[in-house]
């Protein structure tokens, strides 16, 4: 509930009105495809590896369709948190609830992007994107590749792609099943600055279009300010800061002083 209290920096009324207003404003540009996201709730979630407690009783509510960025030092429990939400690991105590169901394993509608693209080298690009196969997988995979601008590379081997292209393929793979929750574990950490900016734009656009709930992990404060609607700073297994990012919520470009102030606040908390 402590995170809720900090959220109150935004008046609750405006917060609840946010979604429809935005859809109305965005309507001429792109059809309102939002609403594909699911809410995520963490209730007193702890995780310990042996004696070492990595997460200490986290409480957190992520709204459906929200874009949350978790920042923190390495070893601060960010990746652990993400793996718990993904269902790859079980919490030592507490529960994680997605769409009113406790997470008890991998979920069909939760997708994850890793720091490395993790493409199967023995599958072509389209084979990787459509890895789950299923009916008409080629068409869906091609649509997803179209969305990340790599439809012309569908039949290539992954090894001849650049690092940025590989991550775009991984993003396409994550989008194929129309996920309602997308978890991103420092996906752009290994990319050069320019490619990273490109990926930010791409991810932001796709998030707006698809409306999934996104949790992205990074140690890059600038990345957090560029992408998040809400930044969480994780320090020693607890949430040290829960900061809404006004310009991303309101879909406007931030002024430089505003960005600098936000980044300073996040940095101070990490």
């Amino acid at each position: 509930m402590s995170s809720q209290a900090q959220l109150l920096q935004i008046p609750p009324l405006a917060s609840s009105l946010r979604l429809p207003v935005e859809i109305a404003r965005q309507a001429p540009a792109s059809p309102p495809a939002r609403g594909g996201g699911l809410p995520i709730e963490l209730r007193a979630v702890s995780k310990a590896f042996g004696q070492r407690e990595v997460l200490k009783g986290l409480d957190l509510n992520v709204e459906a369709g929200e874009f949350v960025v978790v920042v923190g030092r390495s070893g601060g429990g960010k990746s652990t948190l993400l793996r718990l939400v993904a269902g790859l690991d079980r919490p030592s105590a507490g529960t994680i609830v997605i769409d009113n169901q406790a997470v008890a394993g991998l979920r069909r509608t939760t997708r994850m992007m890793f720091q490395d693209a993790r493409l199967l080298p023995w599958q072509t690009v389209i084979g990787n994107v459509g890895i789950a196969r299923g009916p008409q997988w080629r068409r869906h995979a091609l649509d997803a590749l179209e969305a990340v601008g790599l439809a012309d590379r569908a039949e290539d081997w992954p090894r001849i792609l650049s690092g940025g292209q590989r991550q775009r393929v991984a993003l396409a793979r994550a989008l194929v099943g129309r996920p309602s929750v997308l978890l991103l574990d420092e996906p752009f950490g290994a990319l050069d600055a320019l490619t990273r900016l490109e990926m930010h734009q791409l991810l932001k656009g796709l998030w707006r279009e698809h409306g999934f709930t996104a949790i992205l992990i990074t140690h890059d404060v600038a990345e957090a300010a560029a992408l998040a609607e809400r930044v969480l700073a994780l320090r020693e297994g607890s949430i040290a800061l829960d900061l809404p990012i006004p310009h991303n919520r309101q879909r406007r470009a931030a002024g430089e002083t505003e960005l600098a102030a936000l980044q300073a606040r996040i940095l101070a908390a990490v």
Partner: protein
Amino acid sequence: MSIAKTRAPSFRLPDGAVGWILPLALIVGWEIAADGGLIAARVLPAPSAVMRALWVTWRNGTLAPNIAVSAGRALQGLLIGGLIGFALGIVNGLWRPAEAALDSSLQMLRNIPHLAIIPLVILWFGIGEEAKIFLVSIGVLFPVYINTYHGVRTIDPGLVEMARVYGLGPFALFWRVILPGALPSIFVGLRYGLGIMWLTLIVAETISASSGIGYMTMNAREFLQTDVVLLGIVIYALLGKFSDLITKFCENAALSWHPSYAKPAERRP
């Protein structure tokens, strides 16, 4: 590379021709030495004599059936030993309890030189077909097992985790992630196994057989037909090379995704 290009040679050999220069020179030198009487025909007959032996044994109908018999034994042994080794490698690679139960025993058996059990095999099977096929199977089994097991165990766990996150069931995981990931290593085991296959067969056929190339050469020894003995050796070499070529072809077809097997033109970082 750049130096070679600037000094353009006046003529160019076709691709792969360089590798043939040395063996051809050896054969020519050998022929001259044998014809000139430098080497006694009983010690080492001339290449032309070996070719003549090829012609004679082919015409009198001893060569083809013996090659067929040897190739058949090799193939059966390879199939049996290879499949057992492959299955054990997969099971032990994927399933810890099986590994715990079987691996140390297999490692122990592997260190017995399989040719050392020939007397035992003869006692068990006599000199029939089973003896040869059994020996070849044992010889092929271990390299295929070790490399399959190693291939499965060294698959990037990140890829397996990714596949699970993306909803692949155990069956799809095996066919789309584990088997293709282990395949380069499995091919290494197969090529090793092929070498051992021919080696084992030669020894087994030389010691106890009533047909096959090994029998043919031992028979020729009795009659001091050194040219036929040499022909047998050449045929073994050719069979070995041939089976290696087939594997190489399969490798190139199955591993075209692999950077080491890419055509130079499309090899990019």
